[in-house]
């Protein structure tokens, strides 16, 4: 079953990712966001395939359920109209393509180099058990966890400050 699901999710993810970036049918930012949701959900599905149930759930809750809703909220709040058809910037296009090619080259080296990551079977020892994850998080990674929490606090303060009517 796995390959079927993998390819289904992978194709779905790639297609909708492309549609996020460039959608020939609709020039509507909401559509872009909705396809990003589909990508997120596909990735979540892939997480399930990878036995990372907790991550899958968090992926859905945080990305699909919160982040993207926030995006939608902002899009609707700012009343962003459908984009006009605009000519692509030549410079942007060139730099985009060259950057992509460069990245692909870099990755190619990493992926297909000798002794690359070609494991096929992960053992089931670390089977994504939530409690195991939690233990590791709160012991080995406690410091980063706390730092992250501070980061969240800072972000929260920043957002409150930013969204005040008058920046003085």
């Amino acid at each position, binding site marked *: *079953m796995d390959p079927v699901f993998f390819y289904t999710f992978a194709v779905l993810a790639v297609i909708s990712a492309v549609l996020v970036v460039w959608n020939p049918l609709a020039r*509507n930012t*909401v559509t872009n966001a*909705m396809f990003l*949701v589909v990508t997120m959900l596909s990735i*979540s599905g892939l997480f399930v395939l990878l036995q990372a*149930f*907790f991550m*899958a*759930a*968090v992926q*859905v*809750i945080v990305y*699909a*359920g*919160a982040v993207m*809703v*926030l995006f*939608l*909220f902002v899009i*609707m*709040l700012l009343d962003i109209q459908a984009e006009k058809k605009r000519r692509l910037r030549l410079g942007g296009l060139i730099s985009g393509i060259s950057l992509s090619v460069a990245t692909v080259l870099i990755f190619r080296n990493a992926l297909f180099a000798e002794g690359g990551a070609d494991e096929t079977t992960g053992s089931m020892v670390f089977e994504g*058990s*939530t*409690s195991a994850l939690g233990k590791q998080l709160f012991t080995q990674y406690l410091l980063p966890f706390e730092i992250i929490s501070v980061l969240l606090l800072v972000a929260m303060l920043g957002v409150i400050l930013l969204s005040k009517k008058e920046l003085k």
Partner: protein
Amino acid sequence: MTLQDILIATAKIVAFVGLVLPMIAYSVVAERRISAAIQDRIGPNRVGPFGLLQPLADGLKFLLKEDFTPNYVRKAYFWMAPALTMIPSFVVFAVIPFGSSLFGEKMVIADLNVGILFTFAIVSLSVYGIVLAGYASNSKYPFLGGIRSSAQMISYEIAMGMSVIPVFMLTSDPQFYATGLSEAWTTFLAGTADLNLSRIIAYQSGSLFDWMIFKQPLAFLIFLVAAFAETNRLPFDLPESETELVAGYHTEYSSMKFALFFLGEYAAMIAASALMVVLFLGGWTLPFWGLDEPASNLFTGLLHIAIFIGKLGIFMVFFIWIRWTLPRFRYDQLMNLGWKRFLPLALANIIVTAVWLWFRS
């Protein structure tokens, strides 16, 4: 996964949907009758004995009404939105244990280890239906409804999630598993992990005061209120408030599409009630007559399902009752309540529980 698994799962799904759909239908009737009684009226009593066939008539009406799509709506989203509203409510049921076991099968469609996370993941998706309905209608009231609901849902999801953490902190208590469980339960729970919902029921079996509602009353309260907010029920029905937004996000909908919203809302209510039953009211157990053990025969199995439905009914009635009792919140009050009251309270609850557990160990 074997074919048999699939067949069993399908059977469960069919059975469950067969159970839930009439429940939805009759909760609508119940809502109408109860509201009528509260307002000194009679309510629908013409179709069938005591108006019991009313849902049939309603359904027929929905099916036969003209499905009107206004001009200038964003068609794709307009069609998608009702479905997106209904689907998550139904999907949540997948992880809810609505009975102990029948014929040796656990009465839960998918006995996930991350059951509660699953429900939250799904619930968090249910906002899309409403937001997209608001966006797709291309009309100001639905739009406002959509905006309101997205903010409201994100806000209360957090409080809701936080409120159940202490519950799981308690159920994950190693001491409990070391001593407290009977053999029947141990076998029943075999292969499940911490966040599995059946474990919660197991934890609550025993005496009445093992129920989470008594152990975590604050968590229950927050969860209850958040459930009201998540299902857009009064007093938190700001996305659809008739008086200001003319029914909000589904203003422009009619016929079956409207019915889907309706179904979605009631399904969500039932799902929320079911969750509360599982999390706080001991699920399908009762603390006497040995009903707090997984069923060993068909009769108890069925009885457990009946108990579950009974408990669920209490919450449904409560949902309905509250609707006709409390006035609608103002938007800022709603946000204040979510962010400034419930979130700190839930956090405090976590800390208190943690401290208590730490002292006990």
